[in-house]
């Protein structure tokens, strides 16, 4: 009887013969991330992938198939839409509306001055107040932001990094005022400084004090805010900066390794903080490559935690992640096409087993999303969840020859990157040398050139173009917001107990040059209504400021 191998060989011959008459569309096909894609995958491509050791079962090591045994059959992913703009009062209204609509989690976007630790009246903040998120200057604003929202009943994700400790302290202080015990608080702070140096750019302090602040948070929360996810190790922004899927995977996990090492060095034991680590990935257009990326990430992280860091608790080995669809894939041309891109990306995230998802709105390539656009984005998730059927069985892509082969390849390539980063002395050192920045930039440039040469088709941009009217009715933030915010700040500074502010800031200053955990000092300053800019200002004085690299 003819074997599969014989048949396959014959099939290959036949295909090659037919190619003489009719060529394929391209000489070589590549994934978005640049993997050469075979014509056909068979079980022979995954001969070395062990069904038990490498793929395993959902909820079990190495978690390739997912972190829970029943996945979305038990509970759907959290549909978490990132929102926030203008003032705390306006954002508060939006959150209340979202909660009424059945939203389970809040996701707070802060404006750039807040993210960089400047008050709204700082000269560098001019033109930026309330633009890309809500402006928070002090505990007063945070009280307004969560006014009427019981903090023991929501989970709140805050996209905040360099000043994460201050914003978390404000959140805890609001809870205190509501009479909510900090042990009841649930949510996430992004708190991932390494990717800020690498890609996102909202850093303040140099690496060493930044890593200290992060481990201070780990340590403080393990005791006082045990349900809080203390970090969201993010590949999202690295990908947005232009890297490939494998680089996103590798650099994110390399950052993860650096945080674990820092925490261990600070005296924490791995199983005490590792279960509270969470991740944040991008969902780009290449469906199978993205699914493979998430599966490889889970498996690789489990292996790293078990073998490298000797974690005992399976929860320490589980890579849980939030996903956002790729902002960089959206086009300003024919913006409705973005709805379809986001739908494909949603599928990728769900087939990849994400724990929560933000879907971008079609108009985000040129402005803040309108309410109608945000609704379509949310509906996209709901259609995938309730109508497509993909959520009804666990890890449906498993066993696909292509996806398993790609999962395996991406994992190996990520391991090579991580080995290289280890050689350079770990992620912070490698970033200091500009290694990742150069890799990201090279990929970004190649991607752009591929588009310009027409080797990569972007529908509506370099093919299938039309003449179109510029979009109208874009959402704009009222410049009055800046004026109002400055006014509020002025009033606060008049009313608050100034000696108490000064005392708490001085205590923080002294603590900065000690070995002490800074969280309690930041919390006291926050309670005294010291502003974000004042608190970060003390730390700027003590720690200095980071300067980026000029790698183009």
């Amino acid at each position, binding site marked *: 009887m003819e074997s599969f191998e014989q048949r396959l060989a014959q099939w290959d011959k036949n295909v090659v013969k037919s190619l003489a008459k009719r060529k394929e569309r391209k000489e070589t096909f590549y994934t978005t991330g640049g993997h050469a894609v075979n014509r056909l995958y068979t079980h022979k491509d995954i001969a070395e992938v062990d069904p038990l050791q490498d793929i395993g079962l959902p909820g079990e090591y190495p978690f390739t198939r997912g972190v829970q045994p029943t996945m979305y059959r038990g509970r759907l992913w959290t549909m978490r839409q990132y929102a926030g703009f203008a003032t705390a009062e306006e954002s508060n209204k939006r959150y209340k509306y979202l909660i009424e609509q059945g939203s389970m989690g809040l996701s707070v976007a802060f404006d750039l001055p807040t*993210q960089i630790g400047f008050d709204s009246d700082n000269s560098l903040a*001019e*033109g930026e107040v309330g633009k890309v998120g809500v402006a928070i200057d002090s505990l007063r604003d945070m009280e307004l932001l969560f006014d009427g929202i019981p903090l023991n009943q929501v989970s709140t994700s805050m996209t905040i990094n360099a000043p994460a400790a201050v914003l978390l302290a404000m959140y805890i202080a609001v809870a205190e005022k509501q009479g909510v015990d900090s042990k009841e608080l649930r949510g996430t702070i992004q708190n991932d400084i390494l990717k800020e140096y690498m890609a996102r*750019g909202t850093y303040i302090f140099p690496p060493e004090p930044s890593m200290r602040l992060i481990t201070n948070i780990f340590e403080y929360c393990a005791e006082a805010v045990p349900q809080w996810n203390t970090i969201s190790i993010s590949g999202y922004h690295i990908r947005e900066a232009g890297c490939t899927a494998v680089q996103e995977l590798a650099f994110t996990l390399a950052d993860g390794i650096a945080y674990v090492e820092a925490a261990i060095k600070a005296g924490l034991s791995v199983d005490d903080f590792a279960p509270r680590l969470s991740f944040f990935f991008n969902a780009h257009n290449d469906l199978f490559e993205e699914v493979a990326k998430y599966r490889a990430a889970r498996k690789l992280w489990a292996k790293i935690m078990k073998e490298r860091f000797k974690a005992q608790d399976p929860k320490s080995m589980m890579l849980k992640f939030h996903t956002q669809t790729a902002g960089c894939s959206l*086009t300003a041309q024919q913006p409705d096409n973005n709805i379809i891109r986001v739908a494909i990306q949603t599928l990728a995230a769900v087939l990849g087993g994400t724990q929560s998802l933000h879907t971008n709105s079609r108009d985000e390539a*040129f402005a803040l999303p309108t309410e109608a656009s945000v609704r379509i984005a949310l509906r996209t998730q709901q259609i995938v969840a309730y109508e497509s059927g993909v959520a009804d069985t666990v890890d449906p892509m498993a066993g696909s020859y292509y996806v398993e082969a790609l999962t395996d390849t991406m994992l190996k390539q990520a391991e090579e990157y991580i080995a290289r980063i280890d050689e350079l002395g770990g992620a912070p050192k490698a970033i200091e040398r500009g290694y990742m920045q150069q890799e990201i930039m090279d990929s970004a440039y190649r991607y*752009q050139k591929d588009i310009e040469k027409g080797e990569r088709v972007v529908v509506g941009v370099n093919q299938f173009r039309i003449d179109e009217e*510029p979009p*109208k009715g874009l959402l704009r933030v009222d410049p009055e917001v800046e004026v109002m915010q400055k006014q509020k700040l002025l009033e606060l500074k008049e009313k608050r107990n100034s000696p108490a502010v000064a005392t708490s800031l001085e205590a923080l200053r002294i603590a900065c040059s000690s070995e002490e955990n800074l969280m309690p000092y930041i919390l006291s300053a926050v309670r005294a209504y010291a502003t974000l800019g004042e608190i970060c200002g003390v730390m700027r004085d003590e720690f200095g400021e980071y300067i980026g690299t000029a790698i183009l």
Partner: protein
Amino acid sequence: MLERKIRVLVAKPGLDGHDRGAKVIGRALRDAGMEVVYTGLRQTPEQIAATTLQEDVDVLCLSILSGAHNTLFPRVTALLKENDVDDVLVIGGGVIPDEDIPFLKDHGIEAVFTPGTNTEDVVSFIKTNLKR
């Protein structure tokens, strides 16, 4: 006689850290044979104007994605004017709504390149619109 090189300053005013576009453009201009001064993130209009002047660049590329362009771009061009710098081609890029472009052009930004722009188009725009 040496070959005259086009000198360009690629600058990011404002606080946003999204420098992918600025860097890709910078690299494309370098590959087109230009000298590209890059000064990193969070540049104040004053710093940008002073750098433009000291480096005697032919072109100033401003990139911003946070939405603060209407505040910051005109401030840069006003400072250039104050310093009698009138021979520099100033162009802008980033997430900038079409409806803002006339305002920016009135304030001395001679072209605005939005997402989806071909880098070759920027190169040829520069080459054909130099002011000296």
